[in-house]
């Protein structure tokens, strides 16, 4: 037989040193490519779009033509594809692993929703076409409104706000308009619990209200006695998140609503955590006057790396007349009309949140999700979301300290950093160590009312195996922390595309855009 052995080896040889590490010549690491900015790789005269050069007489534009260079490099199609695919590989994503960011509801984003939003009948329709040519779009808005009103038990909804914070703004503007209409325009204070999202006080201040904080009880709820003492003739509204940012249901919510209304104020509910109760509890039954719904949380529209979102606001009978333009009116026979003018029935509308009619693309996705789940499936969503959070809480409590150990949590489990006492390791270090294990960290240092907070929201779309994988990694890290493995934490992440970034430098010498003369940019090449 011939003994031909010039082929490649088929089994790995024993390596001389398993710890051998070297910087690569390209800066890349295996499949992870080092990638320059388009301004360092594109060319001013290159384009990836084939368009004809047309002859033009520009004399009628006078001196208005743009003659100097704009500064926009172009890439051919393969280069652009590769550039943005390479960049994408430096992102964590829900589709990779659990993304337990408390307060953000990072659930699975069904691709059916994407396909529906891209139907030409929705995507290729202009907002100002004649209404006779957009009956299906108006029908979709009407259907979405019906679902949102039914799920919340509220009589009206303003669809147009473009994000949760924009919804808060819409709700407070309606409240302000309602007070003014009743001759109560002197009410200028908004009560906000200390645990609230930052957007709550920011929104209140933005519309000219003074913010007064309401204390929290030892068990993580609104201090009703403190609230009662602070409600008064100058109170315009309270803003309460329910379930709250500690992941707990406000047991006294009905009493909170009663006291608020008794004081002549309105109850604004931050609906960021609606996922915990959808299909099981209707905010309308709790005495809520206005609540925004983050379609990108509860109703699965994609977060997209930070938007676009959508924040429709449901309104009570008292606030409904003040809803902003536009809205859809059904004729009951399959025909729809878009009410855009502030006259007749709409005379009390407080104004307009934005040009056109809001986030249609998100409406389609959200309705696609609602139709898929149905009323029974949505109820299951809340149950599984709460079950998953309580399961993680139960498993993690063996090594970590729950901020509020008594009783169940809702859709998210909150831990503090007491379990790290004496280790020299912080919440931030734990978060960065989780990155090395392939997980996106939980929300850290929020809510502010809990020291070194770690807020974990798994959502209902996590399978049990993934919950266990996450819990075991976190428990192992907790044991490592207590065993004094400082290096694992302090230098983390070691395995991410980058190590910890210098945020101080970014803020002290802000570089907010590429500039050709930038010495660092050139040096980095």
């Amino acid at each position: 037989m011939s003994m031909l052995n010039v082929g490649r080896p088929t089994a790995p040889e024993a390596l001389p040193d398993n710890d051998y590490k070297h910087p690569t010549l390209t800066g890349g690491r295996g499949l992870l490519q080092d990638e320059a900015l388009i301004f360092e790789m594109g060319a001013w005269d290159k384009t990836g779009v084939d368009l004809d050069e047309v002859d033009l007489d520009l004399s009628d534009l006078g001196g208005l033509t743009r003659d100097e260079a704009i500064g926009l490099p172009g890439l051919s199609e393969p280069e652009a594809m590769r550039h943005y695919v390479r960049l994408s590989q430096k992102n964590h994503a829900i589709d990779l692993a659990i993304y337990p960011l408390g307060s953000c509801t990072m659930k699975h984003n069904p691709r059916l929703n994407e396909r529906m939003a891209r139907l030409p009948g929705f995507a290729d329709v202009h907002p100002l076409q004649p209404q006779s040519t957009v009956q299906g779009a108006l029908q979709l808005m009407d259907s979405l409104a019906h679902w949102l009103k039914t799920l919340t038990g509220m009589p009206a909804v303003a669809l147009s706000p473009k994000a949760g914070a924009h919804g808060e703004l819409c709700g407070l503007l309606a409240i302000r308009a309602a007070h003014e209409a009743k001759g109560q325009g002197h009410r200028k204070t908004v009560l906000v619990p200390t645990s609230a999202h930052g957007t709550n006080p920011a929104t209140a201040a933005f519309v000219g209200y003074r913010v007064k904080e309401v204390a929290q009880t030892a068990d993580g709820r609104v201090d009703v006695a403190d609230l009662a003492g602070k409600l008064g003739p100058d109170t315009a509204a309270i803003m309460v998140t329910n379930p709250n940012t500690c992941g707990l249901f406000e047991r006294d919510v009905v009493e909170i609503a009663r006291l608020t209304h008794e004081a002549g104020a309105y109850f604004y509910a931050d609906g960021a955590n609606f996922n915990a109760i959808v299909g099981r509890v209707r905010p309308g039954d709790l005495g809520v006057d206005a609540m925004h719904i983050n379609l990108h949380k509860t109703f699965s529209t994609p977060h997209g790396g930070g938007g676009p979102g959508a924040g429709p606001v449901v309104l009570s009978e008292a606030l409904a007349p003040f809803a902003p333009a536009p809205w859809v009116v059904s004729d009951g026979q399959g025909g729809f009309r878009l009410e855009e003018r502030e006259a007749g029935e709409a005379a009390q509308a407080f104004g307009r949140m934005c040009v056109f009619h809001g986030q249609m693309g998100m409406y389609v996705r959200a309705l696609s999700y609602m139709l898929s789940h149905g009323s029974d499936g949505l109820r299951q969503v809340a149950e599984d979301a709460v079950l998953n959070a309580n399961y993680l809480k139960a498993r993690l409590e063996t090594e970590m300290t729950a901020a509020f150990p008594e009783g169940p949590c809702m859709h998210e489990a909150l831990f503090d950093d007491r379990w790290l006492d004496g280790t020299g390791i912080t919440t931030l270090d734990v978060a960065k160590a989780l990155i090395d294990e392939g997980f996106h960290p939980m929300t850290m240092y929020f809510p502010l009312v809990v020291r070194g907070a770690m807020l974990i929201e798994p959502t209902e779309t996590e399978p049990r195996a993934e919950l266990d994988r996450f819990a075991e990694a976190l428990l192992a890290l907790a044991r490592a922390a207590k065993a004094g493995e400082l290096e694992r934490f302090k230098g983390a992440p070691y395995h991410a595309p980058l190590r910890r970034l210098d945020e101080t430098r970014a803020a002290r010498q802000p570089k907010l855009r590429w500039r050709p003369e930038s010495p660092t940019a050139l040096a980095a090449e």
Partner: protein
Amino acid sequence: MRYLPLTDADRRDMLSVIGVEGVDALFADVPQSARLSGPVDLPRRAGELEVERRLGAMAARNVTAGSAPFFCGAGAYRHHVPSTVDHLIQRSEYLTSYTPYQPEISQGTLQALYEFQTQVANLLGMEVANASMYDGSTATAEAVMMATRVTRRKKAVLSGGLHPQYVHTTETLAHVAGVRTERLTPAIDAEAAVIEAIDPDTACVVVQTPNVFGTATDVSAIAEAAHRAGALLIVVVTEAVSLGLLKAPGAMGADIVAAEGQSIGNPLTFGGPYVGLFACTDKLVRQMPGRLAGETVDADGRRGFVLTLSTREQHIRRDKATSNICTNSGLCALAFTIHMSLLGETGLRRMARINHAQAKKARDALAAVPGVEILTPRFFNEFAVQLPRPAEGVVDALAARGVLAGVPYSRLEPGVMDDVLLVAATETTTDEDIEALRSGLAEVTA
């Protein structure tokens, strides 16, 4: 249900780990009176096929822009977007990631935002741009708020050429912030009246170019007059493609630019989601709303990007924030950036020239229709025409003939200039489309 991975066996096991009997125990804090005993009165779950049927039926009731000669604009424009853009923005890592709060595992989003900020700043001719706003109208309202913070003055002059729904959005916010708005009379060349409205109380003047009637204006003189009075000039652009042909706002003295970026990378989608572009001069950056990506280095000295100057934002400053804005328009901004990277300066300029050429062809065609008068002398890709009859009726009649003829001005501002029609053309407009509009208009106005 296909989106829910837990089995009943999982649920039972997990409940026993938690140590409760049933899932109802986990809802124990909810007042008994507020607990629903069963599903609310809405349809039950549906499979993909069924959902496709129901939503497909709604979609089929709409006349799509691509199926008809199409001339609508007024702040939303139909452009061709390369297939690459939609493919890339649907990658899991972009679509299903959150705001890049953990920069070590968000460099894709952050670097793309940094590229976006640079492209936007250069496109608008400004020093610095943020990571995007909800849309052009909210960006405009935020720009006015920012100008009042910078100047500590409480009056805004809004040009009569500003899109009426932008005016309305801005007025809504200004009203509660105690900012007085003086909106000038709508007119084709409304910018001519702006300078004399500036007084010592003026925080800013807001001028749109090309304006809602399509008129392109050199705002340099307005900038000078505003600056002499200690006021800021805010320039609004609703058609980003125009900047491939027209002078940049920054080159004409703008202090802040608020623009709609939908035209690059984003479909019409009945009005949203879109992407607001927001830029200003370096010295105003700390008063700018919205997120900002910035360059820095990691612990090994490698270049990377982070969200920075975040102390301006709501999650830190709470009631002292520059704005309550929390999200940006991330994925739409990414679509903008990818499309712009494909176009490059060369492609953008060509695209702009084609838009201008097609609009001029449409103008020449309509000028020949008896009773129709062209109102806008100097435009980019959109112009106003005066019709012999109310424009809404004409547009409806043309829609019945299968032509989407444009936007009646009165749709934006009911009761005003009933006989004015706004007509836009882009690179998607064919010569046949223009002929269909001309002949249709001639018929229905005869």
